[in-house]
């Protein structure tokens, strides 16, 4: 069985000289949800755009379900649905007209029953006769998803689907994506939100400065993300970590006024209650405390800086 998407040596250099993609290799399995993470300008959208035919790659090969994206572009693109990041809609058209247009544009015969179900699933059915300009931003986002799904694609790209979207739509979107996956659609999404990747993805890829620096199973990556840190704001600054607290991994910071304790969030007994009790016994007072989970950004930074050290 061919991969849903197979990318090899994909390179894109824009006319401005910007190396947006540097020899990217990626294989997407059929039926999986793949989350592509990376800071702004990392090349996420360029990667999606080259696969969808919006950007011409400088080098490399793209295959969709075994079809070459250049020689068999019709077969490829018929299988692909794209929801871009920007809200671009035909403002003067009605919801029904624009979704019907998309289906036909992709060469599919009219199927009002399918489109009705699609619009109902996206809570757009009641608004089908309204012009798009009268819809809210969230509704427009739904219209763009409906357009992308109108031709029943097997591979769906969602470029930052939940950026600037309210909680309700976000939850709807997650439900929709899961439903699509259950019906056999392969999904590639880009996101900034770690909880989204955690909630949705089977595998996660991290892209930075045009390079795919990591592709990992979600659970393996979440282990790395599982690190948490407890910060205690001390009443009296300490010169060094007290000997009585040596069984915890502690570090002093902010001139001895803060005590940092790193622990694994997935461990059931993280040692915090015992630590606080011991501090009480030792008479080390604290004004405030907070815990922080290492964010995706921390992971990016550490991954990118590791990368930087490897190649001077």
């Amino acid at each position, binding site marked *: 069985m061919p991969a849903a998407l197979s990318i090899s040596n994909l390179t894109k250099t*824009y*006319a401005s000289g910007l190396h947006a993609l540097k020899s990217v290799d990626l294989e997407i399995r059929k039926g999986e949800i793949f989350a592509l993470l990376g800071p702004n300008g990392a090349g996420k959208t360029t990667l999606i755009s080259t696969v*969808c*035919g*919006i*950007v*011409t790659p400088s080098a490399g090969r793209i295959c969709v379900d075994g079809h070459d994206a250049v020689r*068999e*572009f*019709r*077969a*490829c*693109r*018929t299988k*692909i649905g*794209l929801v*871009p990041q*920007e809200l*671009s*809609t*035909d*403002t*003067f*058209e009605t919801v029904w*007209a624009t979704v019907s*247009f*998309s289906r*036909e*544009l*992709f*060469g*599919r*015969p009219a199927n009002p029953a399918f489109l009705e179900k699609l619009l109902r699933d996206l809570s757009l059915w009641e608004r089908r006769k309204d012009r798009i300009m009268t819809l809210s931003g969230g509704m427009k986002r739904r219209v763009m998803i409906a*357009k992308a799904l109108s031709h029943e694609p097997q591979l769906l790209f969602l470029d930052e689907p939940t950026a600037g979207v309210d909680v309700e739509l976000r939850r709807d979107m997650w439900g929709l994506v899961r439903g699509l996956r259950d019906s056999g659609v392969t999904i590639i999404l880009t996101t900034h939100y770690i909880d989204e990747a955690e909630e949705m993805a089977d595998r996660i890829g991290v892209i930075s400065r045009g390079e795919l620096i990591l592709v990992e199973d979600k659970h393996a990556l979440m282990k790395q993300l599982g690190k948490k840190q407890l910060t205690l704001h001390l009443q009296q600054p300490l010169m060094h970590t007290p000997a009585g607290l040596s069984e915890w991994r502690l570090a002093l910071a902010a001139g001895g006024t803060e005590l940092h304790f790193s622990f694994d969030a997935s461990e059931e007994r993280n040692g915090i209650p015992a630590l606080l009790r011991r501090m009480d016994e030792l008479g080390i007072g604290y004004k405030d405390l907070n815990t922080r989970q290492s964010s995706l950004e921390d992971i990016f930074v550490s991954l990118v800086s590791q990368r930087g050290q490897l190649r001077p």
Partner: protein
Amino acid sequence: MNVPGFNRRGAWAIYKFEMARFRRTLLQSVVTPVITTSLYFVVFGSAIGSRISEVGGVAYGAFIVPGLMMLALFTESLSNASFGIYFPKFTGTIYELLSAPVSVLEIVLGYVGAAASKSVILGVIILATASIFVPIRILHPALMAAYLLLIACSFSLLGFIIGIWANSFEQLQFIPMLVLTPLTFLGGAFYSIDMLPGVWRTVTLFNPVVYLINGFRWTFYGASDIGVGASLSMTLGFFALCLVVVGVTFRTGYRLKN
């Protein structure tokens, strides 16, 4: 799933989409050219026509009808086709077109076909309006229709090229306003180039619009300033040139893709 080599539904979808845009603005699309044509008749037909009774055996009022139709055809084809492809570029909805299983063939058929259809409809409306003012005879109706179609397609193609090339609404207006309008007015839409002094007559022969207008006028009255063969080859050459430019544009992705 079997994917055909030509996406018939895709081309048809684009065509219908563009025609729907035309229907939404039906009133201004139809009323404007009718009023403009009537104005031309009042100004040129009555004011000048009272001084020039006949041109080459044809009443002046009737003489300017083909020129008026051409003028409307040029401007409408250009503005419709250029706006049709420029607007999705401007709003960003072009992403869908670029990611769809359509080649340059379907895109051009859809956009240019729709723009040309609108122009032909308008040409017919203008002809009908004109016939209220002056009696019109058409010597070669089939050829006239063919010429109308060819010019509409050529200028819609040119408009399509301008729409792809333009990066702003100003650029969209640039060629129609600064190039085409003067060439049309100097191209014998309202007079026979035989009326010009010798030197200017020669200069005029470098204006391609002269050939288009005269060829079209020939289909009406069987007489023109320039041989119909030269007119037709000029028109076909122009059409072919536009086709080549469109082909090259898409091959290189110029201003559509990075």
